[in-house]
């Protein structure tokens, strides 16, 4: 039994959402009680990718690597040492759209590069190549609960092996048929380095518990993974501690206690 939950220390935060290029910018806004833009474009510009890769890599890879790189730089940990958990609700919807259009017209013209970039772990693949990271890399998805599921999984990995773990969550805005159905209208990315031990770079401490709730859809933070992440970061920005609950399944929630 583990009702005490999992404790992790936040050693670094990366941020890229419409109009906000890093955690410092987001923190100022959240501290004032202003809600960041929930709809719009943002494009990652990860420093660790060589220029030719940066030109060729899909937007979702750029976004994931940008925020992951920011979080690592702030944390003082070497990216090459960190197991990583990459979480996304939709994966690379732009590629999904392109593959489906090609398959509906001329399947034999499918692009080999687009195909190998279509896997959900493409950002994890690019990231581990760019940072020479041989540690475990995970790519997870849980629909609207993708942020909660990824955060919990990263905390589990950090505690199970007693190693700092990188967590990145992101999605990209896409137009087209799939974009319309799935309402893919926001590009966003957030990353954290979660350490099992408090260290010189620790910004805050989180205690995470998986809890049952009567109806997860009634939680105020249900919706997109980005919207679900905001209350926790608002608490972190204010530095005053508190508990937030975000949906993690049909009748489950992730309880996040921010310990001031």
């Amino acid at each position, binding site marked *: 039994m583990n009702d005490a939950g999992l404790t992790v220390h936040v050693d670094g935060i990366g941020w890229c959402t419409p109009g906000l290029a890093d955690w410092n910018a987001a923190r100022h806004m959240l501290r004032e009680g202003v809600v960041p833009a929930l709809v719009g474009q943002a494009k990652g510009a990860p420093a660790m990718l060589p220029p030719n890769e940066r030109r060729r890599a899909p937007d979702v890879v750029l976004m994931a690597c940008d925020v992951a790189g920011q979080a690592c730089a702030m944390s003082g940990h070497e990216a090459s040492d960190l197991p990583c958990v990459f979480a996304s609700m939709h994966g690379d919807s732009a590629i999904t759209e392109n593959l489906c259009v090609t398959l509906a017209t001329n399947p034999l013209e*499918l692009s080999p590069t687009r195909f190998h970039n279509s896997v959900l772990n493409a950002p994890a693949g690019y990231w581990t190549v760019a940072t020479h990271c041989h540690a475990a890399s995970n790519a997870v998805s849980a629909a609207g609960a993708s942020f909660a599921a990824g955060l919990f999984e990263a905390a589990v990995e950090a505690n199970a092996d007693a190693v700092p773990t990188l967590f990145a969550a992101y999605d990209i805005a896409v137009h087209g048929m799939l974009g319309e159905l799935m309402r893919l209208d926001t590009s966003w990315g957030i990353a954290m380095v979660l350490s099992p031990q408090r260290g010189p770079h620790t910004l805050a401490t989180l205690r995470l518990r998986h809890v049952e709730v009567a109806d997860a859809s009634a939680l105020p933070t249900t919706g997109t993974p980005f919207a679900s992440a905001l209350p926790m970061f608002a608490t972190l920005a204010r530095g005053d501690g508190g508990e937030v609950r975000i949906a993690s399944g049909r009748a489950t929630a992730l309880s996040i206690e921010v310990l001031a």
Partner: protein
Amino acid sequence: MPSRIPPLAITAHTATSALGRGCLAHARALRERRSGLRANDFSATPLACAIGRVDGLEQATLPNELAAWDCRNNRLAWLGLGADGFLDAARAAIARHGAARVALLVGTSTASIGATEQAYRERVDGRIPPALAHPHLHTPHSLGLFLETVLGTRGPCLTIATACSSSAKIFAQGERLIRLGIVDAAILAGVDTLCGSVLFGFNALELVSPEACRPFDAARRGISIGEAAGFALLEREGEGVPRLLGHGESSDAHHMSTPHPQGLGARLALADALARAGIGAHDVDYVNLHGTATLKNDEVEATLLADTFPPGTRASSTKGWTGHTLGAAGILEAVLTLLAIEHDLVPGTLNTTTPDALCGPQLALANERRAIRIALSNSFGFGGNNCTLAFGCAA
């Protein structure tokens, strides 16, 4: 190196693939060396290759209350879940431990993307046709949402999608959740189905063999793609059932679709799995290899096998039977490895006649009868994503 972990009981397991539905069908096909591969009769646009197709999915139906989830992948999940009494075993575990103490961990590479492909094929005035306009069919987590609805678990539920290592890594994930005391049981599910993306995607990468795949053969020509559903139930205790002894995960940090030339990531995953199991390579009786029959994978894996294990260790690829079932391969081959343990059977390497010169004496071409106490299963995916699992016979 990680430290040794307490073994877990695998209290139920099952698989459905081109070999049939359930463990008995798989054990029989292995024993009789009967391949499930056939000439490609799946894609509307012809593509000369062999596929591992599950019969009857076109006629399969979901119960009325689950009709909104209908697609090939969920049909295969439903068919597989009912085999070997797995659904009953899962429900009994939920009743025993409480729904909140049971995790549902899902591994898939393409989930129900076949339904998304269909939506584009059948689009009406540039829109998704109403019958397919359900967001839950077009998300990477569709299988997880479907199974959570079927089973009613209330523990952590998420999808791991790391290409062809996906449903191997859910064993590692489940073990961690149980070891940390977050849950008392984990239902593991891996399902991937044939779809245009994978057939024409691997074809574009020039990795699809025009004939049935021949893993580790000197004249191998690439993979045969298959589909499968596999399920396993992990708990702390269980009498007379096989064990999960260890797991190892790593990243190649080399290339998106080509393995590290010296198999660095695969070696790290193996070392981790052995360390967690508290064993050495000399303790391993059988290795179920990733063995896709691509030039590169088999070259790297053959070298690793030859220079890591003693000559007495037996090893084979079972992809000549099932094809490469991609995101489901990890759990399908975990189940085949458990069958090897339970039936004292080293499956050979079907379709292979002349092994690559890099292969050592460990590679079994013919079936062999032999007691297997400890066995490994390798799964490697795009993005250089590797996982090795270690299993043991009933304690």
